[in-house]
């Protein structure tokens, strides 16, 4: 551990500039989508008065949830004092800030009145979990920013543990707040469940670590640095635990719903009759997002392949997007019951499953947010000394 030297990446190569160019292209596309949606209004999107939140919110909430999870690696090092993770901590903090920035950008640019950002931060209704989230998100930038400072500057290093602990507690509260956006909604069958908050926390562990693994592997491979199996094995095993835990929470949520007759309708919709939603759930969230990654991570042969571990991480990310799609779009598509025992019909889609087809604008905006996150973390690697020169087994795990 003593010999670890952190360096920034050179960042002058054609490949590096090309990478920034790709991110820039997606950011421009996202900005164009934002300008178009802002100019025309939301009628050009797939979002309606029935499916109120759409693909931008799937992306935004995914990135925000993943942001707090990406901080886990740093928390394990600073809060739980596991020295193995210390060389990995700086990237973890930067990645969490980058993901939050990307997610918030999507969320804010989808607002009906994005020009009123100043209103959003000057008028507070403290009974609103949304208002609390605005404080939690801005606070996260401040606290994780200070935590990062204690990791980068040896003069303030003595405060690292305190800052790391504060960041860890803050991120748990933050994801509780994100999950509670749905947990506190009494109106809809799919929401109004206390399990939403802890489920979002465990989802964040899984999504955040999957992104972290990919960024770490890409960062080392593309800069020609050595990344040993010790680091990869430890992180992929940890990811496996988080995937399993996410699966458990999802199972607990659906089993609880299945027990109560009043929720049979929404469960039948999500699990059997929901078309795209049902496919997203079984093929996206469960098979691609959980079972296959678990097999890759824990089966002896594929778990030794970096390519397979990358695939597992990508699948966790896609499965995560699918799971949020099921929660968000599925929860809104299913009709609310006005009077129990009665079927409702109206000109306003009462009693029917509401259709939602995401528009290209929403996809462009969402991808713009992803690109913002990636450009921040890529550029941060150039300007800060985030990564150890080498994470070979002899350096990362010298006891072996």
């Amino acid at each position, binding site marked *: 551990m003593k010999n670890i030297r952190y360096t920034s990446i050179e960042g002058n190569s054609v490949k590096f500039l090309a990478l920034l160019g790709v991110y820039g292209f997606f950011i421009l596309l996202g900005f164009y989508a934002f300008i178009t949606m802002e100019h025309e209004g939301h009628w050009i999107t797939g979002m309606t008065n029935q499916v109120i939140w759409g693909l931008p919110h799937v992306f935004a909430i995914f990135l925000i949830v993943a942001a707090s999870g990406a901080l886990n690696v740093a928390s394990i090092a600073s809060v739980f004092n596991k020295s193995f993770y210390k060389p990995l901590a700086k990237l973890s903090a930067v990645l969490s800030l980058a993901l939050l920035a990307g997610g918030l950008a999507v969320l804010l640019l989808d*607002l009906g009145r994005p020009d009123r950002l100043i209103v959003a931060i000057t*008028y507070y209704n403290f009974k609103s979990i949304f208002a609390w989230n605005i404080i939690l998100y801005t606070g996260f930038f401040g606290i994780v920013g200070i935590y990062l400072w204690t990791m980068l500057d040896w003069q303030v290093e003595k405060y690292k543990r305190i800052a790391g602990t504060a960041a860890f507690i803050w991120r748990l509260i933050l994801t509780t707040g994100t999950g509670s956006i749905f947990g506190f909604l009494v109106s809809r069958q799919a929401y109004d469940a206390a399990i939403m908050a802890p489920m979002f926390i465990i989802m964040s562990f899984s999504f955040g670590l999957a992104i972290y693994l990919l960024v770490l592997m890409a960062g080392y491979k593309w800069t020609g640095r050595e990344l040993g199996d010790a680091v990869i094995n430890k992180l992929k095993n940890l990811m496996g635990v988080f995937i399993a835990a996410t699966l458990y929470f999802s199972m607990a949520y659906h089993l609880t719903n299945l027990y109560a007759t009043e929720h049979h309708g929404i469960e039948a919709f999500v699990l059997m009759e929901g078309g795209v939603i049902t496919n997203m759930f079984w093929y996206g969230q469960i098979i691609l997002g959980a079972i296959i990654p678990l097999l890759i991570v824990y089966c002896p042969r594929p778990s030794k392949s970096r390519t397979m571990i990358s695939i597992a991480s990508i699948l966790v990310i896609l499965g995560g997007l699918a799971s949020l799609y099921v929660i968000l779009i599925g929860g809104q598509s299913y009709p609310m019951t006005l009077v129990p025992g009665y079927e409702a019909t*109206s000109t306003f889609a009462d009693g029917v499953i509401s259709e939602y087809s995401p528009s290209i604008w929403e996809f462009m905006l969402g991808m713009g947010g992803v690109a913002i996150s990636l450009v921040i973390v890529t550029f941060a690697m150039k300007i800060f000394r985030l990564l150890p020169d080498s994470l070979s087994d002899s350096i990362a795990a010298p006891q072996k």
Partner: protein
Amino acid sequence: MSPKNTKPEMNETNKIDQYRRKLLGGSAAAVAGLTLAPGLILNTVQAKSADQAVSNKNRWGLLIDTKRCADGCTDCVTACNTEHGLREIHGPATDAQWIRNVTLKNKSTGHTVNMPVMCQHCENPPCVDVCPTGASFKRDDGIVLVDKHICIGCRYCMMACPYKARNFIHEVLTDQLPVAPRGKGTVESCTLCVHKVDNGDGTTACADACKHGAITFGDLNDKNSLISKKLEISGGRELRAELGLNTGVRYQGL
């Protein structure tokens, strides 16, 4: 929309009020002699001037008699649209509908009920609870409104409303009516014809338009009002009463 926002118009409205007082005063004897509908008299008495703050002495509400609500009739919807300048623009998925006709059919008996559904003006409105900026608010007299000046268009209130009563403005609007300030990117819903309530009209566009007498507007806090008497005699249910929101709109015949 909020009481504070009506202040700039106070002088002009005061003149109108003075004019109305003179008119009412001059014809007081004649009015007293006429046998008008009890609800109308009571509501006229309760009319407040523009400089008078909204008070929780009143709790405005609607009573819907579903037995009188005729199959296929859309008079209340048309009246609401005309009153507030709501038009067809890009189709039913994104167009604003402040009030809609819902047909309910009992799954086992086949019993069918028609009823209009609009903002239920809850005493404990979930939309107000979740609004991050406080743009969703409830007046002291129970009317739930959106302050269009501080609505950021996040639509969390629409997610929270148990009645799907809220609409997002999906496009640029032109030629809005003075009584219904509306604009792209903000959320809106039935205002319980707040402009009429504040003018002391004692009715709403939907109640006024219903030729079947299925909609009664009135003060739920006034035991002598027509709505309270009807509720006392025949009762009235809340939609999704299990949520405990104490709605200002009640339904009979469900």
